[in-house]
C-alpha cells in the first residue's frame, strides 16, 4: 500500500503521454500539414502562451488557491508596454515597468488572500474585473501600435531556428520545476495545500508563501503579456481575455488537485501540450471554433473524472 502515490503519479504520466502520442499518430494520418515543421513550431508557439500562465497557476492551485486575474494582468502588461514604447521608452525599461506593475497587482491578490483572509476565488474575480477595467481606462479602449524592433523580437524573433517564446517557455518551466522540486519554498507550497494549519504549526511562514504564489502567478502572466504584445505588434487592452480558463484546464488535466497539496508541474506540462495539440488538430480538421469549446470543456471533465476514479480505486 506504500508507493501508491508514486505509482499513481507514474501511471497518470503514462496515460497523458499515451494521449499525446495517440493524437500525434492520428493527426499525422488525418492531416498532411500536421507533421510539417511549420505547424509544429506553430503549435509550440501557441502552447507557450498558455503554458507560461499554467506554470504560475499550478503554484497557486497547489496551495489550494485559484487565480482568475491572470487575463487582466496580460492586458495591463500589454497596454503599459504599448504606451511606454509609443512614448519612446527603451524597450527594456518598458518591459521592466510593466512587469513591476503586474507584480504589485499579484501582491495585492496575495495580501488580500493570505493576510486579510479573503477567499481566493472572490478576490481574483474582483481583481480580474478591476484589472480589465484599468487596462481599458488606461488605453481609452484603443490598442497601442508597437513598432520597436527589439521589443517585437520577444514574440517574433528566433535564436537559431527556435522561436524566442518557446525558449522563454522552456526556461519558465525549468525554473518552475526546480523551485517546486528542490527548494524549501516548493515544499512549503505543497505543505500549505495539504494542510495549512499543520504547516503553520511546523513553523512554515504560510502567509508569506501564499502571498508569493500569487506574485509568481502574476509574473508568469506578465511575461505572457510581453510575448503576446510583441507577437501581435500592439498593446491590447483586451489581450488575455479568458486565459485563466485554459491555464486552470491545463493544471486540472495534468492531475493537480483543485484543493491543493497534490500535483506536479510535469503534469501541467502534459496538460497544456494536450490542450495545444487538440486545438491545433481541430483547426487543421476545420472544426468550427464553437465546437472546439465544447470539446475542450469535455476534456476537462474527462480528466477530472479519470482522476477521481483512479483515487476511488485506491480506497
Amino acid at each position, binding site marked *: *500500500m*506504500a*508507493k*501508491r*502515490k*508514486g505509482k499513481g503519479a507514474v501511471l497518470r504520466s503514462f496515460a497523458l503521454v499515451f494521449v499525446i502520442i495517440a493524437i500525434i499518430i492520428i493527426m499525422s494520418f488525418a492531416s498532411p500539414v500536421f507533421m510539417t515543421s511549420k505547424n509544429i513550431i506553430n503549435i509550440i508557439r501557441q502552447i507557450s502562451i498558455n503554458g507560461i500562465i499554467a506554470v504560475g497557476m499550478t503554484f497557486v492551485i497547489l496551495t489550494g488557491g485559484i487565480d482568475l486575474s491572470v487575463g487582466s494582468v496580460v492586458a495591463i502588461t500589454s497596454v503599459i508596454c504599448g504606451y511606454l514604447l509609443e512614448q519612446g521608452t527603451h524597450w527594456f525599461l518598458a518591459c521592466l515597468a510593466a512587469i513591476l506593475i503586474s507584480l504589485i497587482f499579484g501582491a495585492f491578490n496575495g495580501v488580500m488572500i493570505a493576510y486579510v483572509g479573503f477567499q481566493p476565488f472572490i478576490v481574483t474575480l474582483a481583481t480580474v474585473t478591476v484589472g480589465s477595467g484599468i487596462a481599458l481606462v488606461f488605453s481609452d479602449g484603443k490598442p497601442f501600435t508597437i513598432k520597436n524592433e527589439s521589443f517585437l523580437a520577444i514574440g517574433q524573433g528566433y535564436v537559431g531556428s527556435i522561436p524566442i517564446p518557446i525558449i522563454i517557455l522552456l526556461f519558465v518551466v525549468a525554473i518552475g520545476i526546480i523551485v517546486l522540486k*528542490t*527548494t*524549501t*519554498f516548493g*515544499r*512549503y507550497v*505543497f*505543505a500549505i495545500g*495539504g*494542510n495549512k*494549519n*499543520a*504547516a*503553520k*504549526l*511546523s*513553523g*512554515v*511562514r504560510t502567509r508569506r508563501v501564499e502571498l508569493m504564489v500569487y506574485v509568481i502567478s502574476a509574473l508568469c502572466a506578465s511575461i505572457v503579456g510581453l510575448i503576446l504584445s510583441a507577437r501581435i505588434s500592439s498593446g491590447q487592452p483586451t489581450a488575455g481575455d479568458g486565459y485563466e480558463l485554459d491555464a486552470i484546464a491545463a493544471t486540472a488535466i495534468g492531475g493537480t*488537485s483543485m484543493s491543493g*497539496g*497534490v500535483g506536479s508541474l510535469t503534469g501541467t506540462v502534459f496538460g497544456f501540450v494536450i490542450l495545444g495539440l487538440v486545438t491545433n488538430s481541430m483547426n487543421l480538421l476545420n472544426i468550427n471554433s464553437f465546437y472546439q469549446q465544447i470539446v475542450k470543456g469535455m476534456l476537462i471533465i474527462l480528466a477530472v473524472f479519470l482522476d477521481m476514479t483512479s483515487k476511488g480505486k485506491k480506497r
Partner: protein
Amino acid sequence: MEDKKYVLEATGLCKSFSGVTVLNGAELSIASGELHALMGENGAGKSTLMKIIMGIYTKDAGQVCLNGQNVNFSSAREALDAGISMIHQELSPIPEMTVAENVYLGREGKKIKGLPFVNKKELNRKTQELLNEYELSEFIRPDMKMKDLNIAQTQMMEIIKAVSYNSTVIIMDEPTSSLSEKETNVLFSIIDNLKKKNVGIIYISHRMEEVFLLADRVSVLRDGKFIGCARVDETTPEELINMMVGRELEGGYPINTTPKGDVVLELKHFTRKGVFEDVNLKVHTGEILGLTGLVGAGRSEVMRALVGYDPLDSGEVILYGKPIKIKHPKDAVKNHIIMASEDRKTLGLILSRSIKENISVQNFEDLSSAGFINKPKEKKICCEYAEQMTTKMNGIEDVAGSLSGGNQQKVVLAKCMLSDPKVLIMDEPTRGIDVGAKAKIYNLMLEMTKLGIAIIMISSEMPEVIGMSDRVLIMAGGKITGELEGEEAKSQQTILKLALGGN
C-alpha cells in the same frame, strides 16, 4: 433460550480489503433494552463490524439477523429504515440548519403534497415531542441552529435523530471521547432512558469505567476475531484487558528516573482574554510535567499560544533565564520549543504528503542551504528518525495518510525529535492509539527525558497523568487551579477536585 430475545445477531462475519483480513469470524448479539459494550484495540475490527451491520460495507461471509430475519443491507439508509442507527464518533451535522431540520433531514414533511415547501412547524412539533419523551427539552430546542450547539448537545440531536427512525438498535462509537464529565453524566442518563424504552445499544468504548458502569454484557474483538463475550458482573477489567491484548499486561507505566535539572522554560502571566488568564508555569530538564483539566479548561490553548500558533494578549516566555519573543511557530522551532499536537489530522500532519516531507517540513534549517533542499541528507535523516521511532512503513515515501493512528503519531514525534527539542509539548500523546503503541510512546518519552528534554504532557486520561507525570498542573476555566507533586500527584480525587475548579 435467550436466543429468541436477540433483536440483532451477527455471526461468522468475515471481511477483507485487498487481501488483508480485517474481520475473521466476528460475532455480536444484542437484546432489547440491553447495552452491549464492544472493546478492542485500534485495528481490532470494531469499526468494520459496525459498518457491515450498517450496510456501509458488504460482508464476505457470515450473516446478520434482525428480529430473527436474515438481512443484507446495501446502504446505511436501508439499515436506518430497518431500525438500526449509528452515532459516529465524529459528528457531522449541517451547521446552518436547525435541530429539527437536521433530525428530519431528507424526510421533511411537505405543506402541500407535491410542492417543495417544508412544513417547519410540524418538524419542530415532532422534534419537541421526542425531546420531551427523552427528557432532553432542557438541553436543546428544535429551533436552535446546529452551529450554536456544543458537542454534547450535537450528540443529543443525533440520538433524537436515531430514535425518530424508531430505531431498535443504536450504535454509539466512543460517544464520550470529547465530552466533559458533566456532559458524560447527561449522556448516561439518556442511555438509561433509551434502555427503559427497550432500545438495544452497542457501545464502543476504550474506557473501562464506563463499560463497567453502563454495560450489561461486553464483547472483545482482537485482530478481527471474536475473543469472547461476558456479563459485566462476571468479569474484571484485568480479564478484559488480557482478552484485548492477548497477553498479561505488565505493571502500568514506566518510571522516569532521570534527575530533574535546571528550569528550562518559564511562562509568566500568560493571558488571552476569554480563553486563559494569568497562567504561570515552570518546567525543568528531564522532567515530565503533566497538564490536565477537563475539556475546555484552556490547556491546549495556552500551549498553542506559547508556540506562537494562537495569539497572546500578554505574558512573558523565559527560556534558560532569558526572555524570548515568540510571534510565529517559526520562532518557537528556532528556540527548540516544539509542539506535537493532539489532532494529527488538522494540526499534526499533512496527510496527503509523504512521511519524509512531513518530517522535514519543520526542519529545513539543517536540511537545506540557500533555500535548496539537500535531498540525500533529507532522505537519510528522515529515514533514521522514522526508524528510531519504530514507525511501521514500507518506506519514507509512504503517504502519511495511509498509516495507522499510532504510526502517524510516531511520524509526528520523529518530526519533533529532529527539531532537537529543549521543551517538547505533547498534547494528548496517546489519544486514539492502541495499547501496544501507547506503551511504545511512553518509553519514547522516557528516552527523551534522558536526553535532558523537558516534556509538557497535556492529557485528559487520569491514569496517564498520574502514571507518567513527575509533577501535575491542573487547569480549570482558563486558570491554573493547582500544582501537585510526589504522592499528592498520585491522588485521583485531589486532581479531579482541582479540575472541577474547587479548592
